[in-house]
């Protein structure tokens, strides 16, 4: 195992012995590729998962038809999809994005649905009493009521997204942080593996923080009601 000094020296070296540092353009290409893949997969998972989860939570009939299929597909690990994904999609990008998207989508959908179920029946009754129609209740009660769960789902989605991305990149692709780690492994280059891992930690942390910041800004009521921060 290399010492931390070796890793750090490699990481900030202008002339890295193992060929990867913050001064080499490839480093940024790897980071950018991974970030792009996660962004696309996470974006798609959110765009599809939130409405799908809302529908599952709001419509009994829809849930009765769709949820059993969903529950059979959901436990299949992302890794098990890799061979099929590679055969199904052309190129290297689509399979990796698909593998990243899948668990992110499941996490978002499931949490959104639970969010709708978590809403106290009194709020819905109160809205009916005050003369709201079903569509208005969806907009003013169901959506904001489910928002805390939706954002929990998005946090999980971001986490599992990075997880599956790395798995996908290790198997297919020629760029990305997963690829960096795997190529470091095949060349028995410890510092490259470590740099790949630390970088993943950093970008993962930043992406989670971004989701959290968006969440807090959309849910000022929670920040202020629960005294989670200075919301004034």
């Amino acid at each position, binding site marked *: 195992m290399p010492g931390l000094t070796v890793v750090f020296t490699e990481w900030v070296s202008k002339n890295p012995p193992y060929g990867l540092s913050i001064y080499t353009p490839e480093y940024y290409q790897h980071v950018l590729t991974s970030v792009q893949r996660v962004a696309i997969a996470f974006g798609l998972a959110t765009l599809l998962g939130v409405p799908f989860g809302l529908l599952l939570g709001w419509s009994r009939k829809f849930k009765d038809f769709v949820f059993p299929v969903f529950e059979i597909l959901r436990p299949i690990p992302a890794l098990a999809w890799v061979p099929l994904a590679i055969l199904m999609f052309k190129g290297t990008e689509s399979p990796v994005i698909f593998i990243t998207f899948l668990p992110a989508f499941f996490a978002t959908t499931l949490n959104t649905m639970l969010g709708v179920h978590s809403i*106290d029946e009194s*709020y819905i*009754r109160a809205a*009916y009493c005050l*003369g*709201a129609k079903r569509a208005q209740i969806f907009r003013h009660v169901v959506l904001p009521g489910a928002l805390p769960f939706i954002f929990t789902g998005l946090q999980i989605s971001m986490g599992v997204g990075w997880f599956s991305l790395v798995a996908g990149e290790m198997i297919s692709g020629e760029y990305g942080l997963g690829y960096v780690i795997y190529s470091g492994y095949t060349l028995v280059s410890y510092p490259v593996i470590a740099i790949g891992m630390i970088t993943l930690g950093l970008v993962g942390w930043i992406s989670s923080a971004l989701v959290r910041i968006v969440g807090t800004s959309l849910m000022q*009521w929670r920040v*202020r009601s629960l005294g989670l921060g200075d919301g004034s």
Partner: protein
Amino acid sequence: MSATPLHKKVATRGHLKIQDAHKVYDPEGAAVLAVDNCSLEIQPGEICMIVGPSGCGKTTLLNAIAGFHSLTSGTIHLDGEMLCGPGKPKAEPGADRIVVFQNGALFPWKTNLENVAFGPIMQGTMSPQEAREKARAIMADAGLSGMENNYPGEISSGVRRRVEIVRALMNDPKVLLLDEPYRALDSLTKSVMHEALLEIYYRNQVTIFFITHDLEEAIFLGHRVVIMTTRPCKPKKILTVDIPHPRDYSVLTSPRFRELMDETMEAVHEEAVKAFAAGEREG
């Protein structure tokens, strides 16, 4: 005690008539009889207090009036208009009958002002602008100025109840349906809430259907106190509280108040014992 009415207007609407209400839960299976042959007439502008042991079926009755649940049989009229009855087991929920819930149901994601303005905006009877202006005014009347832009989670539970009642009154309802709204409050806050409710009532003269466990609360607030039998629920004893309105807290120490308490205590206790023996759960 002066009998001069503070009333700005005398209620002419909100006449609630329940005839032979009957509710069986799960008729094919356990067939639990929750409400049996319950008839009750409430006059416009009356504060009618419903007292009964936990799980006796009071809330079932309230839910039927509000339109959350159906009745198995029986009829409910509001100002001559049938809410539910033969051919229409379940009433439509509407802004003429507004429920104030046991645990409070202000939307935590809306500010107090947005909560109060919610009804008319949803019904399309006011523009959002108008609704907010009226909400501001009606909150000021109820002594709730300065917290318009707070979220319900930022104010005390007592104040939340007041905002919720104001949110209901914003829609000019015929009947307010209160389901043990002060149950979770401590007795000091409760006494403040009672006087605040009466003050709001004297101004608005709305019919009030008020469910409670608390006999003292019932006699202090009500024109009449209806003591319900334990499940199935129907009126066991109806007490007319002849202490004139407006009332304030000095009423509690008056001899007449004690007499009324004594008169009803026994009936309530009897039902509570029956309910306890039957092992009824909260429902």
